[in-house]
C-alpha cells in the first residue's frame, strides 16, 4: 500500500492501463471528489450525478492509454468528466422537447451580485441543479469551465445565439431561485425569532 501511495503518476497510469485493480482504486481516490463535483454541477440531483460519475470513470479507465501526457492528468480527467456530462445531457434530450419560456427576461447585474454574495456554495449548487437541463449545461460550460459561446454551440450542437440566450435565462432562473431561498431564510428567521421571544 505504501508503494502505491508513493507511486509516481506515470507508474499509476501504466498500472491502471494494465488493469491493476489496486492502482485503479488509487486513481479513483485521487480524482473522485473532483469528478463528483463536476457531475453534481451538471446533474439535476445527486442520483444523476452518481450515474454520470460512474460513466466518467469507466471512460477514464478505458481511454487512459490515449493520455499522451500533454497537460495535467487532472485537467484530462476533468475534461473527460465534462464530456461525459454533456453526453448524458444530449442523451436526455432525445425525444424530449424542453418547453422553454420564450419571454425576454432582463436581470439587473446589481441585484444578482447582491444576492449571490450572500449564499454558500451548497446553496448555490442546489440552485444550479434546479436549473433546466439546457440552461444548467450552458451555465456550467460558460461560467465554470470557461468555454466560449461558439465552442459551447459546437459541443452541444446548437447555435451560438441559443447558447447566449440560454445563459441569460439561466441567470434569471438562478436569480429567482436565490430570491426564493432568501424568502425562506427570512421566514425561518422570523419563526425562530418568535420562538425565542415566546421562550423568554
Amino acid at each position: 500500500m505504501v508503494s502505491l501511495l508513493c507511486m509516481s503518476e506515470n507508474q499509476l497510469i501504466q498500472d491502471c492501463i494494465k488493469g491493476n485493480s489496486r492502482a485503479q482504486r488509487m486513481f479513483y481516490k485521487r480524482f473522485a471528489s473532483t469528478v463528483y463535483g463536476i457531475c453534481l454541477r451538471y446533474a439535476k440531483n445527486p442520483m444523476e450525478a452518481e450515474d454520470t460519475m460512474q460513466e466518467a470513470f469507466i471512460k477514464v479507465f478505458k481511454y487512459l492509454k490515449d493520455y499522451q501526457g500533454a497537460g495535467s492528468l487532472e485537467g484530462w480527467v476533468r475534461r473527460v468528466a465534462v464530456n461525459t456530462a454533456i453526453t448524458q445531457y444530449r442523451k436526455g434530450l432525445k425525444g424530449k422537447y424542453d418547453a422553454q419560456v420564450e419571454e425576454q427576461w432582463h436581470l439587473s447585474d446589481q441585484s444578482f451580485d447582491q444576492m449571490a454574495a450572500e449564499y454558500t456554495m451548497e446553496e448555490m449548487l442546489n440552485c444550479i441543479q434546479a436549473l433546466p437541463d439546457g440552461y444548467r449545461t450552458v451555465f456550467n460550460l460558460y461560467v465554470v469551465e470557461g468555454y466560449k459561446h461558439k465552442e459551447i454551440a459546437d459541443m452541444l450542437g446548437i447555435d451560438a445565439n441559443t447558447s447566449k440566450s440560454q445563459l441569460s435565462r439561466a441567470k434569471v432562473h438562478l436569480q429567482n431561485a436565490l430570491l426564493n431561498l432568501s424568502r425562506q431564510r427570512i421566514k425561518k428567521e422570523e419563526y425562530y425569532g418568535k420562538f425565542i421571544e415566546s421562550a423568554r
Partner: protein
Amino acid sequence: MENLLNQLGENFRGFQPEVPMHMEARVMNAVKKDQKSFWKFSLTYLNVYVAAAIAGGCLSAMLFSMSNDVTSSAENANVAVVVSAPAANPSISQNSDYISIEKSELISDKSGRSQTRQQASNSQNVKPVVEEVITCGGTPEIPELSEVHSNATDETVKTQISQTTEISKASLPDLNKVEKKPKGKKFTISTFHN
C-alpha cells in the same frame, strides 16, 4: 456581473464535495465489468461460449451433410458412366479367358465430352490390347481400335469390342442428364431426337 461570474466559476472549479462511500465499490465494479472482454475466458460468458460451440457444431454438421449429398450425387452420376463401360469388359474376359482389364479411367470435361481409356493386357498368349473409347455429349462416336494383336482369336475380340461400343452408346444419355443442368430455358430431349 462578470466579476461575480468569474468568482463563482473559480469557486466551483475548486469545488470538491465529499463523495458518497458506496460510490467507490460501485465505480470499481462497473470498471471491472467493462474491462471484461468477450475473448478473455470468464465464467460470465460461459453460457455464451457453450451456445456458440453448439451452434458452430450444428452448422458444421449441416454443411458436412450437405457436401456429402452433393458429392454422392456427383459420384453417382460418374459411376453410371464408368460402370457402363467396364460392364461390357467382363464379357471379353469371360469369352476369351485370357484378356483382363488392368486400368480404366474416366476423364470428363465441362462440355460433356468424356473419354474412357481402357488398357487391357494379354496375360498369356495375346499381346496388350489398347482400346480407346471417345464419346461426345451429342453424337457418340464409334471407338477406334488402335492396336489389336492376337494369335488365334482375332474375330472374337472384334465382336466383343463392338459389343462394348454398343453398351457404351446406351449409357451416354445418363451423362448428359446429370452434367447439363439447364437453368433458364429448357431444351427438351424430344427435339434433340427429332
